[in-house]
């Protein structure tokens, strides 16, 4: 958070975790696959959707809350985006802001339940996670929204993939970076500015650190907290747009369990779930660690069962080292 503490404590441990994973990749390079630039581009592209979710999750976790609805918001956004652009022919200039608005609205509902009605964030967002998944299924009619558009005669007609899908699923900077990775970077920078340089960010830290003291110091606790969930929902909507563009369809089942991956990223980055501490730098480290771990295991053809177990082990290890720090 402050310049001096950046390389100490949890941050140093998160750097170490990433370095270990990268070293693992250098050793098990799968006949040089790990040394190819395309592998790294792919690893970053695959981690980007999770990373965008994790940025929003960081904002909420810093207030001492949690948002379990992000996976469902991702699905809702993917379904809406596909429906509006592919089936209804909306322009991207309309569809993208509309999707972000939908995500923000879900966030406002979560934040409202948590701070106005004082329902525990876990419960409030759990209920929205279920509810929003239901909306996504209703809107999509339970099926994937793709380029196969139902026609009047009961059959299907196939339409072109809209330009915006290709644009998001393309590469930039001489083909070396995926556009979604660039979008993730933009989300991370915006989140960083909000947290580290904006008044609102400082209010979020104050609320997470001691809500009562913040309130008595004149911090508008309710509004600031709702804002964190709104931002988290909006970022989840962006992630949903990216997901839809990469899959070229809006899958109402998409993003199931992604909320847990986002939380895992935040934890591996060394951010305390109690709130009041942490920052986007750590979330970035967590995203890279999880992203590269998955990639290295996959290029070495490690079965998914083993991948899951390893990921679980790493989360526990991350939390244990943090606890040691808290005690000392």
């Amino acid at each position, binding site marked *: 958070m402050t310049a001096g503490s950046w390389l100490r404590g949890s941050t140093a441990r998160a750097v170490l975790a990433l370095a270990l994973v990268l070293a693992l990749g250098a050793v098990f390079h799968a006949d040089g696959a790990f040394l190819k630039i395309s592998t790294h581009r792919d690893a970053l592209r695959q981690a980007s959707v999770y990373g965008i979710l994790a940025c929003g999750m960081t904002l909420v976790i810093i207030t001492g809350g949690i948002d379990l609805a992000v996976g469902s918001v991702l699905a809702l956004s993917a379904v809406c985006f596909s429906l509006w652009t592919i089936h209804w022919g909306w322009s991207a200039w309309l569809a993208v802001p509309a999707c972000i608005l939908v995500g923000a609205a879900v966030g406002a509902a979560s934040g409202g339940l948590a701070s106005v009605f004082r329902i525990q964030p876990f419960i409030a967002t759990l209920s929205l996670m279920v509810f929003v998944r239901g909306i996504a299924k209703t809107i999509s009619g339970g099926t994937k929204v793709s380029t196969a558009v139902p026609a009047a005669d009961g059959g299907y007609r196939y339409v072109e993939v809209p330009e915006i899908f290709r644009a998001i699923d393309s590469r930039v900077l001489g083909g070396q970076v995926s556009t979604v990775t660039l979008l993730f970077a933009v989300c991370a920078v915006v989140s960083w500015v909000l947290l580290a340089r904006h008044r609102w960010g*400082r*209010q979020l830290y104050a609320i997470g650190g001691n809500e*009562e*003291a913040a*309130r008595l110091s004149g*911090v508008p606790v309710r509004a600031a907290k709702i804002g964190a969930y709104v931002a988290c929902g909006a970022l989840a909507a962006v992630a949903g747009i990216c997901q839809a563009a990469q899959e070229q369809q809006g899958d109402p089942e998409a993003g199931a369990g992604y909320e847990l991956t986002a939380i895992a990223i935040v934890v591996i980055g060394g951010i305390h779930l109690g709130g009041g501490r942490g920052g986007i730098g750590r979330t970035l480290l967590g995203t890279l660690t999880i992203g590269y771990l998955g990639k290295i295991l996959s290029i070495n053809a490690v079965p998914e069962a083993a991948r899951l177990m390893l990921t679980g082990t790493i989360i526990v290890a991350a939390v244990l080292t943090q606890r040691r720090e808290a005690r000392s």
Partner: protein
Amino acid sequence: MSAQGVAKSSSGPRGEVEASTTLVPRLRMRAISKRFGSVRVLSEVDFEAFGGEVHVLAGENGAGKTTLIKILAGAHADYEGRIELDGVEVRPRTPREAAALGIAVIHQELSLVPSLGAADNLFLGRWPTRLGLVQEGAMRASAVAALERFGIDIDPERPVGELGTATRQLIEIAKALLREARVLVLDEPTSALQAPEVEDLLGRLGDIRARGCAIVYISHRMEEIERVADRLTVLRDGHRVASAPAADVTPAQLVGWMAGREAAEPFTRHAPPGGSERLRVENLSVRVRGAVAVEGVSLSVRSGEILGLAGLHGAGTSELLTGLFGGGGAVQGELWVDGERVRFRGPAEAISRGLALVTPDRQATGLVLPLSVAANLTLPDLRRLSPWGLRHPGRELSVASELMDTLGVRANSPSDPVAQLSGGNQQKVAIGKWLTVEPRVLLLDEPTRGIDVGAKRELYDLIERWTYEGIAIVLVTSDLRELLALSDRILVLHRGRPAAELSGLQATPEAVLEAAMGERRAVAR
């Protein structure tokens, strides 16, 4: 320290107690001494209580009552002196050992498990079991019998968290008696109770007494002391000042013992010439969670003036300050700041009108511990320091450094986490963060709690300086000498209502204590 203070500690309790129980005291504490570091908090204190007797332990805050009780309860194992129970020497080293010896302490914060019923709480940790399984039926039956015996009419399965404070307290007492407590310590048992509940509790003391238990009763309320005490012991500054049968002691005598004669002033304040009225409050009432905490209080403070607010634990002084600030409770009444009628819906509005509240617990409500000193110091003024929402860390640091110099905060850098500072320095930050908003009215709630003498002096100097800058101060402190030394006038509350307003020569420790304890006296004005 006066002549009458050397009291008749050898005299027994009053006649109605059975002779057999009077021969050996249930509890005898002899020459108990205790130090915390270099500070001697108890000096050779003798205390004894007989079975079937209510022995009131009285004294100002910081007199050593709590330490004495904690030693008895096994919370401070390293004391000097002897403790005897029924003539046998004991040395409780942990609260568990003390409880096993039959010493039960009922604190202001009750120790029941809120989610469990009365039955489970009564048998907590001692559930009747067979093969490791709790015998629900047997437990329920004996719980019902016990509750009946103590006349507590409740459903034994209902979670005690849903019951009122008074009922929970009775359950806790019943629990102690069920475990055959020989000594029952009641530490300000009525501070959280309403008047009818106090009546009920005092009425039950007779029953408890009849069981042969020795009752040590700590209270600040004169009417209770007069009603329940068989004998009185007064502590002051860690010494036993007096011990006497209650019937022989007049309220004036008791107050005299508690306050002492030579209340040396720790600080002499030079008050600036009085200015215009900064804050006026008419007929203020505050309800906290439905209960009336403050009722019908009016006050006025001029710029440069310090108004002291005195009252015992639970008298409503804290609630008054928090309510004024829009920080909690349902507030009724009228408020003027600098002659302008105001109404606060929350702390932010109060701050924008120039009010500032220093809360009594810096760790719980004053500071954001994970954040840096600079972040804490600039939190109330964040809006002004971040035009268009964008913060300027450099400017925040320079504002913070300047404040740290003014306040004498000792820290390596304004970027250090505030949690790393010592208590006194943390307190300076908790107070100093308000100076950035240039307050017109400073509400100080226990500003010197838990800090050392040196830091206190520095704070007094700062407070004095602020009065010269035209700030009006309302001061709540449980340190009577501090209150007298700093305040221009003192408003005393008793159970949320104004009991007296004292100034100049009227403001003596005795007068404040008498009014705070509810001793009737003409309200001077």
